[in-house]
């Protein structure tokens, strides 16, 4: 099957589904506050463009910051854990505790501790808690799974720990780290949305808040428009990270080997 056709098929399916949706709503005369047709959602997007774009920017900012700190802290902690077994033994149970505790349950506490004057900061922290664990575990696994003989090559060259890290472990761990980053990216967005929901009325003006607000006002088309923007943001994030993975690994990693 041609590459163009492969890309066109999902697009055609999407357009067909939207068409069926539009037609069904008109034929069955479902009230617009229950299920608006795609055309009404499009209108809502245009009518509320400035507001929705402002909210999108807020969510993008929170997601990006949470993701950045998830990558930085996940990688830093992974490096520490793989160098100091004792520290890993001491800290790992608490990292797991943080991960398994439902973030919705601790979010109000974080809001109180950080203070309602710095809601954005609290939102980033909540989203970071959701996003950081996959980055940490994947980076640890990547750093640990370097071929032992490559470590021997480093030992024979007289490599110091940082040379071993720089020349061998970090590049070898890149595939795992990028997988972790892809998961973390999606989770950072989910975390940002959850955090906005928890922060409640007026405290944040991101897309999640727009969804709550539109729901309360029964402006379901606007709710869908905000939802569509959230999905688009998630997809963009995923493909941006997939592109990064392709750029970094395509030349040397087996997963990008050309199939004949």
């Amino acid at each position, binding site marked *: 099957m041609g590459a163009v056709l492969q890309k066109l098929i999902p697009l055609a399916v999407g357009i067909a589904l939207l068409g069926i949706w539009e037609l069904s709503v008109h034929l069955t005369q479902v009230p617009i506050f229950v299920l608006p047709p795609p055309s009404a959602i499009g209108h809502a997007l245009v009518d509320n463009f400035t507001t929705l774009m402002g909210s999108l920017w807020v969510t993008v900012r929170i997601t990006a910051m949470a993701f950045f700190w998830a990558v930085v802290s996940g990688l830093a902690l992974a490096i520490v854990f793989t160098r100091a077994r004792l520290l890993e033994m001491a800290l790992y149970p608490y990292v797991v505790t943080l991960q398994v505790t439902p973030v919705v349950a601790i979010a109000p506490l974080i809001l109180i501790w950080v203070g309602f004057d710095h809601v954005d900061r609290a939102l980033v922290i909540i989203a970071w808690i959701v996003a950081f664990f996959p980055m940490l575990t994947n980076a640890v696994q990547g750093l640990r799974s370097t071929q032992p003989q490559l470590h021997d*090559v480093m030992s024979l*060259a007289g490599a*110091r720990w940082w040379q071993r890290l720089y*020349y061998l472990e970090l590049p070898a761990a890149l595939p795992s780290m990028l997988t972790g980053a892809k998961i973390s990216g999606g989770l950072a967005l989910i975390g940002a949305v959850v955090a906005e929901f928890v922060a409640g009325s007026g405290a944040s003006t991101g897309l999640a808040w727009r969804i709550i607000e539109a729901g309360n006002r029964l402006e379901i088309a606007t709710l869908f428009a905000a939802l569509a923007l959230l999905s688009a943001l998630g997809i963009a994030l995923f493909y941006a990270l997939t592109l990064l993975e392709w750029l970094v690994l395509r030349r*040397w990693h087996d997963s990008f080997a050309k199939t004949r």
Partner: protein
Amino acid sequence: MTRAPSLTLNQLGLRFPAHGSAAGVVALQNITASFPAGSFTALVGPSGCGKSSLLRVLAGLQAPTQGEMSAVTQSDIGFVFQEPTLLAWRNVYDNVALPLKIANRKSRLSAQEIDVRVSEALTLVGLEARAKALPRELSGGMKMRVSLARALAKRPPILLMDEPFAALDELTRFRLDDDLRAIWQQQKPTILFVTHSVTEAAYLAQRALVMRAGEIKSEIAIARPASQNQPDNFRAAPSFHAACAAISEALAQGERA
């Protein structure tokens, strides 16, 4: 290449701790041998007899639990593993240059000197035209050549080789054996070459040490008349067949014992 030091081992032993055994597992025992500067020795023996462990001890990758050996530093040693052990994300040139770059803290080689050494090593193994290629773009034989070039670029007086050509097809192996002999004749490093192959040991080395159960059981000198230094001649020579027979016999004695 710096002058090759001779290497002597005195009652060397290596024991690994094991569950349920206070004595542990003996990998090497009573290894006493000397490897004169510039000599070529093959270590032959069945799997698990301690050949690779001996090489690892000599390379400083494993500390012996007993005995002593002449002091050599890791900078004196080039090591070629059974697998090419190349960094997949670095091209051929960068793989060969890496140990020199890492060791540069001590050796203080200039970038130009590193370049000269890498180019020279790649020329020796016939891969100067593939310097920019990534490991995945090379055949198995070429990857092993890169691995050999990486060891040679250090200009090590001692070259330890752990079944480097075992995974290759016979024709490629013959070609690499010839290349290795030519490099040895040209640069005269002290070579210890671990192999499963009786014919490879007889073809390459000046003597073969037959190992069994962690010990050196016999030593076989391989006579190679000067006139038979041409690559293809020696495999047809009676002395080659005699060496093969002697090594096989020493191995078979172990099987019978």
